[in-house]
């Protein structure tokens, strides 16, 4: 099967073109470095099946980070290259085009973001460009689908240009200069509103307050949307529709082992949170407690990504992140990681050196709770019998403030001791885009689907496993075994060891397990300690697999040692500060 590879500079819309061609949805955003791995899809061209590969963006064919290395590897396999070019920035994009043509592979150009050129007063003569380069050039607007059909019909016309011989960098730039003179005219435009917003959000004096405001608003919205979805949709659904249904099944099953595994530990008593049945708790926790927050979070994240705000935030936080052994781009894995640590871990590939990637990965796994865990942390503290109205807020803040402090302190220390380079930031800032709501919804939906596909089987399996272990007495054994450590070192009940171990399967299940203990097992402050340690102690198994793949075995072992030490130090400190003993 023929392989067609999409190549181009970062953030020119390759992934959007890919989705248009193959119907396979991949995440696309408005910042360089969204795609850090390749995706494959298939399509038919004149009856023949071809494979389309979406490569990470690269400015040239000499890689400067891991994502660009992936792009080069993919290029080697290409039979045809679709070079996606940003029409609003032809000069810079043509460098890669010339390099591609020197490779002697058939190339076709998709002149993307064509609509933007009109807004910016840039006139590109695509016919002339086609003539000069000797390959087909198709103007496209991938977001709306304009020009994609023409692109598909012209793929077979893709060709190499034997007149373009390998040359020096110097030579390429001279060539580009002469091409630009012939094909591009730029009108002078005054400062637009978009430029003004861009300036305001990137200047420190206005940018920092705006950043704080945006982050605060984003999280406030997540909480608001998440809670509303729970209170007005999921909770009623489970109470009114699902409860009678499960009760009926329970009556049919009668008391026994099957009932205990599927529905509840105590016969006739169904509590969705505490019953620990596969079709009660196993469904309720992911669907009614976590999913609403996942929906809310990914909707907000998609909005932030698509407007192009993240690179500006990266600029604003760069000097702080530099002290942590990374640069401003290190904020991107944190944001993605707040949804799920797995994509967060993959996003560290956009950092240039091993040192930066190691620190970013370790900090992510110890100090950034995923949304599934966060949702459950919200849930346990909201359920506490509270003495005053803002108590849950105070406890939740304690957990997060501890994690934020840990992120900075651990980063500061790691920066000192991890060997390697920490080069300065060098990042392209895309222009602001008004998010295309349909695309934002679609992207949110894709991420929700991943969550469901991943979470539901693990939850079932987790609940089943816990039941089995309870049955054969392993849980009690572990609780007793670790009791001296838990009580003596951290001042928390012995049962906590079971919770921490469950965290290895899934963090939300682990926090959920806390809820199944009788009220009074934990004091509120003890819950703060457990929730915090659960974040730091060990990532879930899915994240763990990605860390191993990204860092290699040796660095993974180091990372694990750091996790365990961090959890111990923070646990003991919290004990003295919060419990006072």
């Amino acid at each position, binding site marked *: 099967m023929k392989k067609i590879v999409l190549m181009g500079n970062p953030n020119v819309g390759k992934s959007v073109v890919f989705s248009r061609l193959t119907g396979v949805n991949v995440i696309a955003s408005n910042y360089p470095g969204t795609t850090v791995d390749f995706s494959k899809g298939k399509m038919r061209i004149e009856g023949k099946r071809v494979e389309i590969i979406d490569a990470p963006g690269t*400015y*040239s064919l*000499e890689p*400067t980070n891991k994502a660009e290395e992936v792009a080069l590897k993919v290029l080697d396999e290409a039979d045809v290259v679709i070079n996606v070019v940003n029409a*609003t*920035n032809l*000069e*810079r994009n043509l*460098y*890669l085009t010339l390099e591609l043509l020197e490779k002697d592979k058939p190339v076709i150009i998709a002149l993307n973001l064509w609509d933007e050129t009109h807004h910016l007063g840039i006139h590109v003569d695509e016919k002339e460009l086609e003539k000069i380069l000797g390959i087909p050039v198709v103007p496209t607007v991938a977001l709306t689908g304009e020009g994609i059909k023409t692109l598909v019909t012209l793929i077979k016309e893709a060709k190499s240009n034997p007149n373009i011989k390998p040359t020096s*960098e110097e030579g390429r*730039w001279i060539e580009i200069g002469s091409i630009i003179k012939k094909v591009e005219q730029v009108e002078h435009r005054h400062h637009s509103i978009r430029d003004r917003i*861009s*300036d305001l959000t*990137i*200047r*420190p004096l206005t*940018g920092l307050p705006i950043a704080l405001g945006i982050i605060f608003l984003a999280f406030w919205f997540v909480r608001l949307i998440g809670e509303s979805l729970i209170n007005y949709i999921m909770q009623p659904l489970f109470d009114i529709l699902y409860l009678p249904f499960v009760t009926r099944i329970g009556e049919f099953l009668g008391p026994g082992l099957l009932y205990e595994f599927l529905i509840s530990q105590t016969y006739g008593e169904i509590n969705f949170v505490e019953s620990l049945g596969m079709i009660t708790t196993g469904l309720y926790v992911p669907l009614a407690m976590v999913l609403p927050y996942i929906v809310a979070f990914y909707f907000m994240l998609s909005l932030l990504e698509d407007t192009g705000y993240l*690179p500006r935030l*990266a*600029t*604003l936080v*760069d*000097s702080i992140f530099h002290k942590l052994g990374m*640069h*401003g781009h290190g904020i991107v894995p944190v944001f993605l990681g707040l949804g799920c640590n797995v994509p967060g871990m993959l996003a560290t590939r956009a950092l240039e050196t091993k040192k930066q990637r190691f620190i970013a990965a370790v900090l992510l796994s110890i100090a950034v709770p995923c949304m599934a865990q966060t949702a459950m942390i919200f849930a346990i503290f909201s359920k506490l019998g509270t003495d005053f109205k803002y108590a849950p807020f105070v406890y939740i803040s304690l957990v997060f403030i501890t994690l934020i402090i840990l992120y900075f302190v651990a980063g500061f220390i790691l920066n000192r001791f991890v060997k390697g380079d920490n*080069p*300065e*930031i*060098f*990042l*392209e*800032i895309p*222009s602001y885009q008004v998010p295309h709501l349909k695309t934002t919804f679609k992207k949110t939906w894709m991420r929700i689907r991943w969550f469901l596909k991943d979470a539901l089987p693990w939850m079932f399996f987790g609940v089943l496993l816990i039941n089995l272990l309870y049955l054969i007495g392993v849980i009690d054994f572990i609780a007793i075994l670790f009791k001296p450590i838990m009580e003596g070192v951290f001042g928390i009940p012995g049962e906590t060891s079971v919770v921490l171990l469950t965290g290895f399967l899934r963090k939300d299940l682990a926090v959920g397990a806390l809820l199944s203990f009788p009220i009074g097992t934990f004091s509120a402050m003890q819950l703060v300690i457990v929730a915090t340690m659960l974040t730091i102690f060990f990532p879930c198994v899915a994240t763990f697999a990605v860390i191993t793949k990204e860092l290699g075995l040796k660095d993974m072992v180091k990372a694990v040692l750091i996790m365990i030490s961090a959890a111990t130090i923070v646990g003991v400190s919290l004990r003295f500060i919060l419990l006072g003993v």
Partner: protein
Amino acid sequence: MNRQNIYLIDLPANKTAKIISVSGGYGLQRKLQTLGIREGQVVKILSRQPFRGPLTIKVCGSQITLGRGIARRILVEEL
């Protein structure tokens, strides 16, 4: 006219300048070039972050954030 070459880092806000040369290792030079930072291009500083933070510049039709160390290697002539 008395035109002096200065480093990009010393260019006052809202002034435009032309790039005279870029010094540094081959890797860095190439990286800068592919994003449009090379001889003859016109640059303007859009913002400077405090605490030795990065600069954001406008060059070759796009905006780029770069560290101060890099800005010290770019020689420009104020226009």
